[in-house]
């Protein structure tokens, strides 16, 4: 993974002191509240319903065991012994004290971490494929490019006060595990027949009030122009994006207003006139330097001789289920990618305790070269586990309630914090997730259903990505009571699409029953092993609407 040099370290150290000074001036009353608001947001600090919330950046979802142990320590020392992974692959502390945040930042800096630009109207943490570098189908490892983006965007003097927040996602190839089409910018690594590698660039996707699937702005951008082209897009956006209405300020609205052709022409002009051959152009040597941080780990070549798990499967069916659901093929024979489910029964999706973090750090050291990844789906990944060690890993994870074999099933939900933790929420989300979990605790039933994405958001801001789920649930407030609206047929994958509403919102107590009805229609109409998505595509929403809203069954 990327290691800080002296300059990188000095930058985060100086930023800590700068932020400490800003906090002190705010507490002393010499920095006006609205100015401090903008400054603290750019450093990841929100003030929420119950307490401040601090969001720590995990650049493109990659962290070392040392860093994870530090996060565990911080949760013990400054918080309530737990933390929460977000869909931006960042980590949130829900109970820090405003006065102690500078100290927390100093602790983070000691392990090459920070909270820079995890909030506010600036360029946020870049996300990518959690299987980067180890997945068979990838064009290239996208992480060197993510690190290039991280550095270019970090404390960029010109883009700190954008019209609105700005999110970039990078995929490793055709498979999209980063929801890139619903980002402000999506970058897809592609390879020409000639072997030349570049990016397909998507712009103007997003969720929230106005969900939009992004459009292609450049079909092929050679990798050396990554920085210069992003710089051009950002300048066009900074100068032209709307500033009069925060709900219309994202780049997706600008792209919609201009049309993709005009947007592309403006960016192209900016790029050709100024940035393309400027210092932003990446030399091969520079790209190679970034690549050198992400070379394959030292795999054991004998691992391929120990692939037989039949004895372990005979010992435990649960292990077999976990192997099938929670591990993924690795590009090196003898290894698997193991997904740690942060979706246990009856606990908030994405939450981890300090002890679990310590344990995962230890397991990463023991079984996966000391690295951990966080995913867009709010799970964790150990990317390089020997097949022969999977059983031992599973035993250790099981003991810590981290081995629920539910990856990509109905209960592997994305769920925003909702009413309990978010000042903007209209409705509860975590109790709804719990209600669904209680109803669908039969894993065999879930396995029969196959891959289904269910996402829950507590308000129209859509942090739970409900628009791009097979089953999306949006909490709304009706005269002080929580109601839930269902959308079906969304996807954030390669064939991204927005779900459609099936009818009026339903009472909180009806949510799990409604999910059951939806699944009933799916099962009734399913041909062989069709996925939920395939069935929806084939039969449309009508049968679901009819059954869910029929007066009696």
């Amino acid at each position: 993974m990327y290691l800080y040099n002296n300059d990188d370290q000095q930058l985060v150290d100086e930023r800590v002191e700068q932020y400490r000074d800003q906090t002190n001036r705010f507490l002393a009353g010499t920095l006006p509240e609205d100015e401090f608001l903008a400054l603290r947001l750019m450093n990841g600090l929100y003030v929420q319903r119950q307490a401040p919330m601090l969001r720590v950046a995990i650049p493109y979802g990659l962290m070392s065991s040392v860093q994870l142990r530090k996060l565990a320590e911080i949760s013990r020392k400054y918080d309530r012994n737990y933390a929460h992974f977000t869909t931006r692959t960042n980590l949130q502390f829900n109970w820090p004290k405003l006065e102690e945040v500078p100290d927390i930042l100093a602790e983070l800096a000691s392990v090459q971490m920070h909270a820079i630009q995890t909030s506010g109207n600036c360029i946020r943490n870049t996300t990518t494929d959690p299987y980067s570098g180890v997945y068979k189908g990838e064009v290239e490892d996208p992480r060197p490019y993510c690190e290039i983006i991280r550095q270019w965007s970090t404390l960029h003097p010109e883009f700190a006060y954008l019209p609105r927040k700005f999110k970039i996602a990078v995929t490793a190839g055709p498979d999209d595990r980063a929801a890139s089409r619903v980002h402000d910018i999506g970058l897809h690594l592609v390879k020409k027949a000639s072997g030349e590698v570049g990016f397909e660039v998507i712009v103007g996707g997003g969720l929230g009030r106005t969900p939009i699937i992004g459009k292609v702005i450049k079909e092929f951008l050679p990798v050396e122009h990554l920085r210069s082209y992003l710089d051009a897009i950002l300048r066009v956006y900074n100068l032209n994006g709307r500033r009069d209405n925060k709900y219309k300020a994202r780049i997706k609205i600008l792209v919609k207003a201009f049309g993709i052709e005009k947007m592309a022409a403006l960016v192209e002009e900016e790029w050709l006139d100024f940035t393309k051959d400027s210092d932003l152009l990446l030399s091969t040597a520079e790209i190679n330097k970034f690549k050198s941080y992400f070379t394959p780990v030292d795999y054991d070549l004998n691992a391929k001789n120990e692939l037989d798990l039949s004895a372990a499967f005979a010992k435990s069916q649960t292990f077999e289920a976990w192997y099938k659901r929670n591990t993924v093929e690795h590009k090196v024979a003898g290894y698997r990618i193991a997904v740690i489910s942060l979706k246990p029964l009856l606990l908030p999706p994405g939450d981890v305790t300090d002890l679990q973090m310590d344990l995962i750090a230890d397991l990463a050291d023991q079984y996966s070269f000391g690295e951990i990844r966080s995913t867009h789906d709010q799970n964790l990944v150990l990317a390089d586990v020997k097949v022969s060690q999977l059983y031992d890993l599973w035993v250790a994870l099981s003991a810590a309630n981290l081995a629920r074999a539910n990856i990509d099933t109905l209960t592997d939900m994305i769920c925003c914090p909702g009413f309990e933790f978010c000042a903007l929420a209209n409705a509860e989300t975590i109790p709804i997730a719990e209600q669904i979990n209680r109803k669908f605790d039969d894993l065999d039933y879930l396995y029969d259903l196959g891959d289904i994405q269910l996402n829950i958001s507590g308000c129209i801001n859509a942090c739970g990505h409900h628009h791009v789920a097979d089953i999306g649930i949006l909490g709304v407030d009706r005269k002080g009571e929580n109601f839930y609206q269902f959308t079906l047929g969304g996807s954030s994958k390669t064939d991204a699409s927005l779900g459609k509403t099936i009818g009026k919102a339903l009472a909180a107590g009806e949510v799990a029953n409604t999910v059951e009805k939806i699944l009933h229609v799916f099962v009734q109409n399913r041909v062989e092993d069709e996925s939920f998505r395939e069935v929806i595509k084939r039969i449309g929403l009508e049968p679901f609407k009819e059954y869910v809203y029929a007066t009696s069954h």
Partner: protein
Amino acid sequence: MPLLINGKTSVDAWVALDADDYSADAKAAIDHSLQQKNATIYPLAVYLTYREQLSADPANTGVLVTGDDNLSSLSDLLSEVSLIAIDFPVLRDGRGFSIARNVTRRGFSGEVRAVGDVSYDRLDNMQRSGFNAFQIAEDRYTDDAHQAFTEMTVNYQPTHLR
């Protein structure tokens, strides 16, 4: 209002075109301003209207630009002025950073002055985007303002320095 130029507190050698005079009788106000031979800052739209007269004396002519102005017209008058003041109407409006960048990279070497909502915590960003002069409101100015430029000594955007 305190003015920092290249990190030092400076006396303002410029006056702004009197807005009241201008709205009462535009032509008279322009003639008067030219007779005074003061170094004067004109709103960009005014400058464009009287460009023929005003472009005669670049050393004493400046323009005030806001994010809502027609920015493409700005790029071809850079040789006719020696000061460009860029307005930050509110804290959240960051268009001025890109406007400054646009004029400096097109070779403008005169004074690029930040006006409006200008305060300590954004001075460094402004300087690194191309500004070299900062007009700070009286109640937001402190004598340690120049320290804002040295809080961060490393950055990832070296090309942005003038």
